C-alpha cells in the first residue's frame, strides 16, 4: 500500500450495484486523469482494496448485502487516510451524524451534477493532474 506521490494519478474506486451508474461515472471522470476501478458491491469493493489501495472511494448506499455506509466505515477502519464519499438518491437514508461518525467526507446526491462532482473530487484529492 503506497501513498500517491505528487504527479501520480489518484486512484479511485467506484462501488455501485448499478452498471449504468458505474459506466456514467467513468464517463464523467474520464478526462480528470484518475485511475478508476469499479466494484458491484461491498464485498467486491473490499477485495479490490485488498489488491490495491485507493485514494478515494465513492460508494452507493443501497446495495445488496452490506450498505454503503457500513462498507465505507469498514474502508475507513482499514485505511483511515482513504477519502470516502457516499452517493445516494435518497438523502434521508443516512443522517449527517452517521456520516460524520463513519468519517465520510460527504453525501453526493443522485442524480449528480457533473461539474459539481468533478469540483468536489478535485478539491479533496491532492496533486490533481494538470
Amino acid at each position: 500500500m503506497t501513498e500517491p506521490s505528487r504527479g501520480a494519478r489518484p486512484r479511485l474506486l467506484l462501488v455501485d450495484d448499478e452498471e449504468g451508474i458505474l459506466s456514467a461515472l467513468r464517463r464523467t471522470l474520464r478526462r480528470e486523469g484518475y485511475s478508476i476501478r469499479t466494484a458491484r458491491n461491498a464485498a467486491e469493493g473490499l477485495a479490490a482494496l485488498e489488491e490495491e489501495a485507493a485514494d478515494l472511494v465513492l460508494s452507493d448506499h443501497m446495495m445488496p448485502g452490506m450498505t454503503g455506509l457500513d462498507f465505507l466505515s469498514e474502508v475507513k477502519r482499514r485505511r483511515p487516510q482513504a477519502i470516502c464519499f457516499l452517493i445516494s438518491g435518497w438523502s434521508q437514508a443516512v443522517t449527517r451524524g452517521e456520516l460524520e461518525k463513519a468519517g465520510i467526507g460527504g453525501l453526493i446526491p443522485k442524480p449528480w451534477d457533473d461539474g459539481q462532482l468533478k469540483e468536489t473530487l478535485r478539491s479533496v484529492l491532492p496533486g490533481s493532474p494538470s
Partner: protein
Amino acid sequence: MRGVLRVESSFQPVRVVLVEAGLSGRRSEAAETLEQLGPGTRVDRVTDAASCRARVSTVPVDLVVLENTPAARDPSFLRQLSALGPPVIVVLHEAVAGDSLDAIRAGATECVEPGPDLDSRLTALALDQVRQGRRHREHEEAERRIVELEDYTENIVQHMNSALIVVDDSGRITEANPPAEEVLGAEPGTLAGRSFEDWFVPEEDEATLISRTLEEGHRFKGAETTIRRSDGRRVPVGISCAPMKDRRGRNTQAVVLFQDLTEVKQLELQMLQSEKMASIGQLAAGVAHEINNPTGFIHANLHQMNEYLADLRRTWKVTSELQAQVARGDLGEAQRVSTQLSQLAEELDVDFVYGDFAKAVRESQEGSERIRHIVQDLRDFSYRDTGERVEADVNQCLDSTANIVWPMMKHSVALAREYDELPRLRCYPMQLKQVFMNLLVNAYQAIEGRREAESLTEPGEIRISTEAQADGIGVEIRDTGSGIASEDLGRIFDPFFTTKEVGVGTGLGLSTSYSIIERHGGRIRVESEVGVGTSFQLWLPTRVPTPEPADD
C-alpha cells in the same frame, strides 16, 4: 214469550230512543217492554222528532221506536233517521189499513201492528232489529277496515324507499312502486304486465334469483346482482326475494325488494382506492430509488454525449478542411492538415469516443426503458376497478404487483415464484393486486424487521406460489420474516389493527384484503410462527359464487 227471547250473556246493553205520544207522565207500555230487552238496556224517552234526531246523531243508538206520533208519519224525518243508521220500528196503536205500508215506504224498518201480544211482538222485532243493526254495523266496519288496510298497504308500497315488484308465476310483473320504476328506468305505470327478465337478466346460464324464488320457492336476503335498465345501463342492486304462497300453499308469486347500489359501490371503490393509494405511499422510497438511478446515469450520459459530440465536430471540421485541400489539388497543404487530423484523433481518442458514445446511447436507452416500465406498472396499479368482474390471469396480477414492490425490497429479499398453469379467473383484478401488494409489503416489512432485530446480512425470502385446484385457484405468499405473535393472529384482519409503527401502516391493509377476498367468494388464512415466518394462503373459486338461499 219474553222468557224465550233470552239474550246472550255477551249481549251488549241496548240503547233505544223511544218517541212517545205526548207527555202523559205515565210510562207507555212500549217503554216498559223495551226496558226489558236485556240487562242494562237504556230507553231514552222523547216526545218529538227534533229531540230524537239530536239523540241519534250524538250517541250510538241501537234502535229507534216511534209510537203513533206525528213524527211517525213524517216521511222526511223517517228518511233522516234511516240515513243516520239505526233501525226504526213504528208502533201502530190503531189498525188503519195501509198505515204500516206507509210507514215502511217512508223509511221505517219495521211496523208493529196493534193487536194481542203487542209487547212480545215488539220485543221480538226490537231484538231482531238490534241484532241485525249491529251485524250490519260490524259488516260496515269490517269493510271500512279492509279498505283502510288496502289503502295502508298500498301506501306503504307506494311510499317506501325500496323498490318493490311482485312477479307472478308466468314472470309478469303484477305490482310495482315508483322507486322500482326509477331503479329500472321505466316510465311511471309501465311496469305492470311486462316480464321481469327485461331488466333482471340471467348471467351466464345462471337463473336469476327471482326465477329460483318462483320455481323453487327459495328466499334470498341481501343478495347482490346487476340489472339492465331500460336505457341499457347496467346497475348493481341489492335484492331480496320471497315466495308468496296462495291459499293452497303453492308458490304463485315472488315479492322482490331491491335497491340501487351504485352509490354504495362507488363509495366502496373510493374506500378501496384510498387504501391502495395509502399503501402506494409505502412504496414511494423504493420507486423513487428505482427511477432515480437510471435518471442519474442518463443525466450524466447526456452531458458526456454533448462533449463527445463537440469532439466529433472538431475532427469533422478538420476532415472537411482536408477534403477541400485535396479537391483544390494542394497536396502540400493536404499533407499538413492530414497530420493535424491524426494528432487531433489521438488527442481526443476518437476511436474510444465513437465506441463509448454508442455505449452511452445504449445504456441510456435501457435506463429510460426501465423508468418507463416502473411508471407504467405504478400507473397500472393505481387504476380504479370498474366494479365489474373481468377475466384475468392471476399469475400476471401477481407478477405486475411484485414488479412494483420489488425495487423496495430487492436489497433485502430474494423473491421466488412458483407459478402453476392457471385458468383465467372472472374477478376484480385491481382489487386482487391490492391484496397481493398488501401481503407482499407485509412480508417485506416482516423480513426487514427480523433482519434488523437479528442483525442478519443474508437476504430473507418471499415465495409466491400458485396452484390450479379442482374448484378454484390457490395462492400462497410465504416469507421468512419475524412472524406474527399468536396473541395477534386472531386480530390481524380487524380494521385498524396494526403492530407497525405510527405512519408505517394504515391498519387497513389486511382487513381490506379480507373483504376483497370475501367479495370474490374466496377464503384467506394465515399460518405464522415467530422467528420462522408467515404464510398467507388464498383460495379463489373459479365459478362466480351465486347467492345462497336464506331459507329458514
